[in-house]
């Protein structure tokens, strides 16, 4: 998911307070920034929301890679609007994280220093126009699986950000499917691009949900806090079950020879992604990790004079106003 492998922080606070806090969550109440909360809850949320926000911002890059090459004016506008939405979603999420007592600049610095992570998926390259379809269809499709239940997460600002994001994202997956459908029904070259995109994005998309968390202590805590709503495996299964028929409709083949409908469980059996690859990508060894960080670092450093210049002007204006009064 956009927030993968988020470790929940241990908490050692007054058991009575903790119990009351848990009771509020169990009762379906929203926790608001000024409410008392366990330190572990706060820190885990900062990590999770921050990682989610970083993923949106870094996620602009692989799709942004094709804005200047979009093949029609309409496709260009759609893609630009979509990548712009991702900037907006990053912004909403950073604001939600900021209510927990960390600034956006601090979060940014932690991303650039490598202290904070973003989703593994954005370290894969977009190599053909069909990839833009695959990203919308598969990557946004996988993200939505997670984001829809997160609208009910216990932390108020996070929940409200997710509601807004889900509303805006509703067109993202559809435009991706529409795009790849045009490719799949197009010329032999287009069809080949569509299949190739699916081949390359299938397993990285499955990795987005993170490794199996059946036995993870962290997941149990996060689920009790309602900052994680479903297990990774539940969401992955749901994603596969939803996506297979969509691929069949396109006449594309999911690159998994073991993919098979399992009547008993009412879902597909499918192959696990290569988890070694996943851990390598998280460690920085994905195909695009270095490029992504370089792009974000350059934007941040090159933009410093603009941010400072605008702030300086605002300060001057204030002092001029004060002097005039």
């Amino acid at each position, binding site marked *: 998911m956009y927030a993968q492998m988020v470790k929940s922080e241990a908490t050692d606070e007054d058991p009575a307070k903790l119990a009351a806090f848990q009771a509020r969550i169990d009762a379906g109440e929203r926790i608001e920034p000024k409410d008392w909360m366990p330190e572990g809850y706060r820190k885990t949320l900062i990590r999770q929301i921050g990682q989610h926000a970083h993923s949106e911002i870094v996620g602009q890059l692989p799709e942004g890679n094709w804005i200047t090459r979009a093949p029609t004016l309409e496709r260009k506008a759609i893609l630009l609007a979509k990548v712009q939405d991702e900037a907006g979603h990053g912004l909403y999420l950073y604001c939600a994280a900021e209510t927990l007592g960390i600034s956006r600049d601090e979060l940014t610095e932690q991303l650039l220093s490598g202290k904070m992570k973003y989703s593994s998926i954005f370290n894969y390259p977009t190599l053909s126009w069909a990839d833009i379809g695959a990203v919308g269809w598969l990557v946004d499709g996988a993200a939505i699986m997670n984001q829809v239940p997160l609208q009910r997460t216990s932390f108020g600002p996070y929940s409200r950000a997710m509601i807004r994001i889900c509303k805006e994202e509703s067109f993202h997956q559809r435009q991706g499917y529409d795009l790849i459908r045009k490719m799949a029904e197009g010329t032999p070259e287009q069809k080949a691009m569509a299949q190739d995109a699916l081949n390359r994005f299938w397993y990285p998309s499955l990795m987005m949900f993170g490794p199996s968390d059946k036995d993870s202590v962290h997941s149990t805590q996060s689920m009790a806090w309602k900052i994680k709503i479903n297990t990774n495996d539940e969401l992955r299964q749901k994603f596969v079950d939803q996506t297979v028929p969509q691929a069949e409709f396109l006449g594309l083949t999911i690159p998994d020879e073991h993919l098979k409908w399992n009547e008993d469980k009412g879902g597909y059996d499918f192959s696990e992604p290569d988890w070694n690859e996943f851990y390598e990508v998280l460690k920085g060894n994905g195909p695009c990790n270095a490029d992504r960080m370089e792009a974000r670092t350059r934007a941040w450093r090159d933009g410093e004079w603009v941010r400072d210049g605008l*702030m300086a002007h605002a300060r001057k204006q204030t002092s001029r106003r004060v002097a005039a009064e």
Partner: protein
Amino acid sequence: MSSEWPLWEVFIRGQHGLNHRHVGSLHAPDAELAIRHARDVYTRRNEGVSIWVVPSAQITASAPSEKGPLFEPANDKVYRHPTFYDIPDEVGHM
């Protein structure tokens, strides 16, 4: 000099004349730019016809610990709600 732009809370009034509603926050060096950013960030889908921005630092919020004393007294004032009163059907809509 490197200092972060202050945070602003954004309120938007939609097409239908309802109250301004809090929609989120953003960063801006001053009020004027905050309005412009709000236009660009929060009205991309035609959501509003009027924008208010307020420095987040200027918002005074009620304390969560006072939630009981502040809001519970209103709980038993049931007579303030129209459903408290029985009006016979024959009287018609009221």
